[in-house]
């Protein structure tokens, strides 16, 4: 009987790209997203909502009209900054389908902790010491044949023309 090799697996997996959600899903997604944003706002106390609106309003104004009301502007901006910080630090609330309990509560670190140096994002240049678990994993996998190395793409990769 034929055995599945790497290429066949890769081909079958590639076909999974065509598994699509129900029709109209992507069109509705954005509406749903806005609805959830509004829902979240509605759960906030009214005073916070007002300040949020004021903040958004101020951002929408152009500079000239602001200069006539310096004190008010300053007050609103300060409040807005405080509110923004508070919202930013809010814990995640998961809204998963009813059939399962809420799962996500740990904020996932994103932009701030990203360690890649600015500006290039070229792949790192590495030096390595043997990893501790090698010896152990070699024993458990001794029965399996070794992996004969020949990748299908070179590792050398430059994402930008920065030099």
């Amino acid at each position: 009987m034929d055995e599945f090799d790497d290429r066949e697996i890769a081909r079958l997996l590639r076909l999974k790209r065509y598994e699509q959600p129900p029709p109209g899903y992507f069109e509705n997604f954005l509406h749903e997203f806005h609805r959830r944003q509004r829902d979240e706002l509605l759960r906030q106390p009214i005073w916070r909502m007002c300040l949020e609106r004021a903040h958004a309003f101020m951002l929408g104004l152009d500079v000239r009209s602001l200069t006539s009301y310096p004190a008010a502007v300053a007050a609103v901006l300060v409040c807005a900054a405080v509110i923004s910080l508070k919202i930013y630090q809010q814990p995640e609330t998961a809204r998963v389908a009813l059939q399962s309990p809420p799962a996500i509560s740990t904020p996932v670190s994103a932009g701030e902790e990203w360690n890649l140096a600015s500006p290039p994002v070229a792949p790192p240049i590495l030096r390595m010491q043997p990893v501790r678990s090698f010896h152990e994993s070699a024993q458990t996998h001794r029965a399996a044949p070794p992996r004969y190395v020949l990748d299908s793409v070179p590792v050398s990769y430059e994402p930008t023309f920065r030099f």
Partner: protein
Amino acid sequence: MSPLSGSKRSVAALALTFLSGGSLLFAQEQSATAISHQVKEIFERCSKAVVKIHGVDEHSEICGTGFFIDPTGTLYTAYTVGGEAGNFTIEFGGKKYPARQLLADIRSGTAMLKIDETTPALPIGKSEELEVAAPVVAVGYPLDLPETPNFGMIAGFDQKYLGRYFSMTHLRVNLPTQRGEAGAPLLNMKGEVVGIVVSSLENNSACYAVPIEAAEKIRSDFVRFGEARHGWIGGNVSKAPEPVDGSRAEMMQVMEDTPAARAGIKPGDILLQVGRKKVAQPEDVLDASFFITAGDNVPITVMRGNQKLTFHVQAELHPASKNVPMLSDGTRVPAAADANRSIPLKLESAAQTTP
């Protein structure tokens, strides 16, 4: 008195045709035999210096190919073989030897290992001398088979593949490769190494090889500094709408407080030459950039308006060398050695015991 009569002339002409046709065939046979002799001779001479590499990574044992380049046991291989595994052993002359990693550089796709033995070595050639359709030989260890010769030709010099740019121009070779041959040497018809096989193309009917000059650059950095020292200028290049003096590589952005900024290069300058490499397209800076070492004084020629200017830029250490990802067990891959350190690190060849 008269020279050959008409009929005798035609006979002579026919005989001449047969003779020349015959000798042509003979000559072709000779050159076909000559090529196979050459390939056989290169294989027999060079395979002594080509070795099988065993290593262990997170999941399993891995196998690849490598080759000695000096008589003290220094060998080159592909990064995918010698870069992120440990517990290396080398099979050579019917025996196994433990090996340690000297240096692994993902940007070039190469790694250097070492055994403590006297070894034969392959002479280093120049990939710059190769042209498309130049014949080449590779020697590798496919799967669990012994050292195997391979013959093909240079198919192209590629800066990118499937939309992704390489850090330097790669040699594309129409030569069938099998798994286990990553790290195999690519030899010209003089038996000199011109590249290192690093990956295969669709259906293994062709492969990519890193030019040997790239590995030599890394090794030269290692000898001088104990580590790879990729150079950094601090500019971002884009495609100019119109060619200026033959080049469309425009300095779109010069970052603050970088060697380029300090030397006086400005956005809008059209690059003509970086170091020894002529630049005509934005992607040409990748090659130029790869061969710059931190600390080098790099002459960069640009067109600014109607003026041709040359700046001498003192390259710094590439920021990417400060980044280190993690291995899957949560330990960090150690960063490049401190800038002050010039003595090569002695890596442990035995694995650490698990706690």
